[in-house]
């Protein structure tokens, strides 16, 4: 049986990982859109 303290640690690590994943996903999209905007500006 797992220790409740350890469960809490795992739960916090999991929620932090989810938030970090979402932030990295959002940044990936943002960098892609920035690249498109820069290319567009270069052709303007």
């Amino acid at each position: 049986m797992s220790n409740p303290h350890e469960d809490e640690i795992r739960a916090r690590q999991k929620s932090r990982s989810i938030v970090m994943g979402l932030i990295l996903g959002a940044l990936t999209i943002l960098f892609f859109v920035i690249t498109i905007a820069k290319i567009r500006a270069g052709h303007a």
Partner: protein
Amino acid sequence: MTATILASPALPAEWRDFLALTKPRVMILVVYTAICAMVVAPGTIDPVIGFTAILCVTLGAGAAGALNQWYEADIDALMKRTIKRPLPAGRMDRESALHFGVGLGAFSVLMMGLTVNLMSAAILAGSILFYVVIYTIWLKRRTPQNIVIGGAAGAFPPLIGWAAVTGDVTLLPVLMFAIIFLWTPPHFWALALFVETDYAKAGVPMLPNVAGERVTRRQIGLYTIAMAAVVIAPWPLGLAGPIYGGVAIISTAYFGLLAAHVSFRSTATGVMKDVMRPEKRLFAYSIAYLFILFGALVTDHLVLR
């Protein structure tokens, strides 16, 4: 620094604690004034790049807030208002806060420099360093004028927003900086007069505690006079039109009335139920005032230019 050893937390900090470290409520003014400056600045900016610039300003402000909480964990632990923050409450260790603040600050400046322009990145870096090094570490615990210096730190966003669009800084963004800089002391000291703070307990020399209520009231009046001159200035200088001029004169006249009431009152004593009502009124109006003023500048620009 008078270091207090804060116990290391038994559990890793939650993501909400990292968010709390960035002082999200303070960011509203930061983002609003930066956007206003971006709209008013001559020229155009790609909406994606504009969004990125605002994001960088927000992240930079968050980094400054995190580093401020990292350094002030010892005094935050002594004050009722701040004792529940992640570090004094023991939900996060100081090293995590330091790494988070430095990482976030470096990321925001790098992203600004790579995607927007170098001038806005340089001002953003300067504003973070000013807030953390000059205000938080150097002067906050040393001078009762600390709020004046802190006001300068909060006044940088219009410069950054303007520079994001134009790549330079001219007189109008400097005046926008000066407006926020000179607005901060009357705004904050009005609050300090009616809120019972425990800065004295924490050893922070806030003006009302060090110089007394009478001096604080006089300083509110003096800073309001200086602020009024700077607020009106863009109109006669031809940097803003009559919409801004009219709104600035009327809203500043009302600010002046409220500030005069607070300045010329004698030290409040007695057992009246709401003895600090003028101070509360000035504080509440001062928040709306800044939003009205910058809103008028944007309206003036969109309608008349």
